[in-house]
């Protein structure tokens, strides 16, 4: 089972579908094996800059 990171957004991108805008070449038979890719979070929710975060900048973050 694939693990879900705490930094991944809930799946709001909709169900996984084949890219209907894609064209296949003759002989294109990829295995249909969908895999979820939860969108990652890279921006803080805060709208104001947290100056204390500067102090935490290079401290490695680990999770229990």
């Amino acid at each position, binding site marked *: 089972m*694939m693990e879900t990171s705490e930094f991944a957004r809930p799946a709001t991108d909709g169900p996984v579908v084949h890219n209907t805008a894609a064209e296949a070449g003759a002989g294109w038979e990829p295995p249909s*094996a969908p*895999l979820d890719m939860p969108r990652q979070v890279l921006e803080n929710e805060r709208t104001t800059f947290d100056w204390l975060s500067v102090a935490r900048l290079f401290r*490695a973050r680990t999770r229990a």
Partner: protein
Amino acid sequence: MIRQIPAPSPKTRAIRAGAVLLALSLASVAAALVAEAGATNGFDLWDGLRTVLIFVTTGWLAWGAMLALSGLPQPSRARKQVPQLVVPEPRTVVLVPICNEDAVATFTRIEAMYHSANEAGLTLDIAVLSDTQDAANAEREKAAFAELIAATGGAGRIFYRRRTDNRGRKAGNIEEFIRNSGGAYEFAVILDADSLMEGETLREMIAKMQADPQLGLLQTLPRIVSAHSLFGRAMQFAASFHGPIFTRGLERMQGNTGPFWGHNAIVRVRAFAESCALPELSGKPPFGGHILSHDYVEAALLARAGWKVQVDHSIDGSFEEGPENVLSYAKRDRRWCQGNLQHIRLLWAPGLAGWSRFVFLQGILAYVVSLLWASFLLVSIAATVLAPPPDYFPEPYNLFPVFPSDRTKEITALAIGIVGLLILPKLGILFDAIRSGRVHKFGTAGKVFSSLLLEILLSSLLAPVMMMFQVRAVLQVFLGRDGGWPANARGEGLIHVWEAFRASAWIVAVGAVGLAAAYYLSAGLVPWLLPVGVPMIAAPLLIAWSSRPLTHTLFRVPDEDHPSPVVARYRALMAAKLKPTTQGGTSPTQVTADAAA
């Protein structure tokens, strides 16, 4: 199971700490010399600026030297055993994302790698993921794909898919495949259109991923091949001769939070899927929108999710092609510049390892430092011109005059020290290569020394020109100009003087005006500025001259005398395709000519 960010080993911590301390120490010495020189006639704002600028720029140079220093010590005699592939062979796909590439060359490389992989006993799938938007190029790709299937009998193992909506560019292209077909594969090898890899290399990479279930991504050090021009061959030589040592230093410093360079690497599909779906950043490009330099971010995200990311300089049989002239290099560099500066938005991204943030910072500094060097030159001129006249009687009632102390020796020593930071690591690598015997792969020690000297001379001449291109790129990005992702200029070679002049006339102007202004304001500064000003004025000649083909015995690399089998096969296949046909119909030559047009 929740994974922790891979912790660095005590050895890695020690190497990092030592490198940072030494770099900061050298930067402090440089800053102290400049500050002391400035204080002889009163320490003012300009002296302060110069001191700060020389601290940062020298620190950056010193950091680069530390990478070489960290990589010089030979690894322990007991060579790590290369793991064997455990059967059954895990299902692996080779992904080749392309966009407006030379279809014949790209698919020929794939053909060479397909045969090489089969000979290595592998049954890999290969997926060509096209984002080509131009309809004519798309038709050429389909034709080349059909030829490939016919030549290899690879139907059912080699696939071709073209997206008409290239959202997210290369990262989105790969993501689309992983979302639709990733569940069928355990590993994915990610290549560029100009990548080549030996079948045995692919086998070794898969085996290493099998041997370490915590390894999320393994990056090889691709060697540049097929360079023809002076510029291209100089880069090829530098990458082949210096690259392994610098990369070994990088390995030792990065530990398990290593780099991803976007190609010639293998990923664990499940790890990539769970952690590497990149978001669009808020706001507009160049700082918002899709993440341009996605590879560094993907490496950071894999580490955040607790996977190891490693680079291994010892894996042989991984190749790529490089730019053949300064303008192609500058075009590619513009995209990398924007991508790295965009990482400013990610310095505070939640949950990243401290070292990942430091890697982003390094990427940002790699480009900003050109602006800082240029600023240092301007501030130095300003400081000299605006310096107050000497005060011979600083103390009242003093009968005897006090002459300002001459700091020329110290500043000369500083200049020599800075040059030393650039050259000494390369000399160190040369001595190490002579001691270990590696030098003989490149020719005699004398020939290699000559190649090294010429490479240093060429890079010294081109450095001011590259600096100006980077300064322009940085300023464009900070002023909000989005450079996007222009088509790769693979195989572009000879640049005529007029074309070089059109591209670099502004550099000539800046160099000429700068030297003239320095002469007018303070003639004594001119000798110090000549090493920067003269190459800038000669930029069109340097760009054109360095783009000319070079067939000299200098800059020889092992791959030129003894090409790797997959490279040799690719060249043979291309040569056969480029022969004019005697029958009717579209010849491969015509196909390639169309692609070139």
